[in-house]
């Protein structure tokens, strides 16, 4: 049997069984919190990967939709006592809508213009949450966000939190997986590589990019919803441009356009700064060095799109899902 490993199932098994088992064994709330942050970051990285890796739009606006979903959830659950399904749906729908509206003019912009415009969005968002005190409670932050609620049940404790996050994140990553590893993904990649040529093939790059943008906004908004509950606390400082940079780092270190890379990248950006704590005031220096060296020596990231796509295609061919 020369079948490649079923990577998706393997990943799901690790996230749903192995990690919780390890956490339970060591009983560490600290490790559990890091695991939750890794998962949420992985969803952000996967969504950003869809945008940068597949649709080719270099974007720095992660914090806009992440923060939007987080604040939306904080406001809904604190003031209206909403439950998890409502919040996830609300965050997904409102995120997609906001992304669609903002994306409509923006995705027309070429390369660097788009990147700078999204950088601007991030700053505009931060200024807004910082100063619109009536809505966001301003710099004090939003405290006392209740725990996840599913119907009448309140999900408390790290294990419950972890599972809610794991299931939603896996769902989100599955969506990105479907979109990228399908003919739809091919169409997006064509629009990324050569817009004129894609149009000559009957594709509408603007529509494809706009859809990618709206989906990424929607998923990030869902990630924000998870974060709001997992943290019980939001402050505008969570949504500064630098945090967008961290997600971008996760994507680059993990490998552009690759979903396993999104998880690897998330592991790196969440755990490396934690491991570097003993460095004290050299910590940021160390992080910069690691970032720099990884770009220098791993220009394609730890798990690049090429290898991951080849991997999946081999798998599909063997399974006979695609004809050669």
């Amino acid at each position: 049997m020369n079948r490649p490993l079923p990577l998706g199932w393997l990943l799901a098994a690790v996230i749903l069984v192995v990690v919780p088992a390890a956490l339970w064994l060591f009983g560490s709330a600290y490790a559990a919190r890091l695991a939750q942050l890794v998962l949420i970051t992985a969803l952000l990285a996967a969504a950003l990967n869809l945008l940068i890796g597949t649709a080719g739009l270099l974007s720095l606006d992660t914090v806009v939709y992440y923060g939007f979903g987080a604040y939306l959830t904080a406001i809904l659950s604190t003031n209206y006592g909403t439950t998890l399904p409502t919040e996830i749906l609300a965050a997904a729908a409102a995120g997609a809508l906001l992304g669609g509206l903002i994306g409509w003019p923006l995705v027309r912009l070429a390369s660097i213009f788009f990147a700078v415009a999204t950088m601007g969005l991030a700053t505009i968002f931060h200024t807004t949450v910082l100063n619109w005190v009536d809505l966001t409670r301003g710099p004090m932050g939003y405290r006392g966000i209740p725990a996840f609620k599913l119907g009448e049940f309140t999900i408390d404790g790290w294990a419950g939190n972890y599972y809610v996050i794991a299931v939603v994140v896996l769902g989100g990553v599955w969506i990105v997986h479907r979109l990228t590893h399908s003919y739809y993904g091919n169409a997006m990649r064509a629009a990324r590589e050569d817009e004129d040529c894609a149009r000559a093939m009957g594709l509408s790059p603007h529509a494809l990019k706009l859809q990618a943008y709206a989906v990424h906004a929607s998923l990030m908004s869902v990630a924000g919803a998870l974060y709001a509950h997992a943290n019980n606390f939001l402050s505008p400082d969570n949504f500064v441009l630098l945090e967008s940079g961290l997600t971008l780092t996760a994507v680059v270190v993990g490998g552009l356009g690759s979903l396993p890379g999104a998880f690897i990248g998330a592991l790196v950006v969440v755990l490396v700064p934690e491991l570097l704590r003993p460095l004290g005031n050299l910590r940021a220096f160390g992080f910069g060095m690691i970032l720099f060296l990884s770009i220098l020596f791993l220009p394609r990231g730890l798990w690049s799109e090429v290898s991951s796509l080849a991997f999946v295609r081999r798998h599909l061919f063997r399974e006979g899902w695609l004809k050669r």
Partner: protein
Amino acid sequence: MSSLLEIDRLSRHFHGLRAVDEVSFGVNRGELVGLIGPNGAGKTTVFNCIAGTLAPTLGELRFDGARITGFAPERVAALGIARTFQNLRVFPDITVYDNVSVGAIGRAGVSFAGALLPFLERGRTRRIADSTSTALERFGLAAHAGTLAGNLSYGQKKLLEIARALALEPKLLLLDEPAAGLNGNETEALAVLVRDLRDAGLTILLVEHDMPMVMRVCDRIVVLDSGRLIADGAPAQVRADAAVRAAYLGDDS
């Protein structure tokens, strides 16, 4: 024979310069028409107007009886006009298979919902896979399906471009200088291939510099010079035309 493509007094001006000036001709179903002319004659401009890359200044284009003047490229493609590019435009960072599939996708369409829930679009997916495989096999690219397009040889990239256009299952194929940069043997093979496509019933409009090839494969030739149409007829007829000879005087062919 009815006209598949009709070009009626097409003009395109650039900053007052008349790159194409009231050109009219037609392409019949199943016909292989060559569009030639010296450098700067306006061949590529006519080509781009048909493909929707440029909007005509004046005049009308009709395809299959319907007006397509000024349509966007993707709309023209959706109606069944596929094109290749003069300078290679393969997608270098994705595989040969994926390159060709883009043409098939353009034909069958994809949707967001279908990508998420594949069972909704099983038929469509199969159609894309089938036409991709057919096009790959026809051009002998099946063995390279998994390689990145950027790693192919120049000749293979040319073939890939045509395969991708064909995966669109067009009614009309626009070829923009397909022989440019190919050596003698490759040009020969290309000529055979183009002829085969035409024999299989495809309508083709060929813009080409390689005069012997054009003369040999085309059913009819249209000649432009300085934006104007100066001849339209069978190869032998065009070859004998005084105006064409005058236009090409000093030209190396």
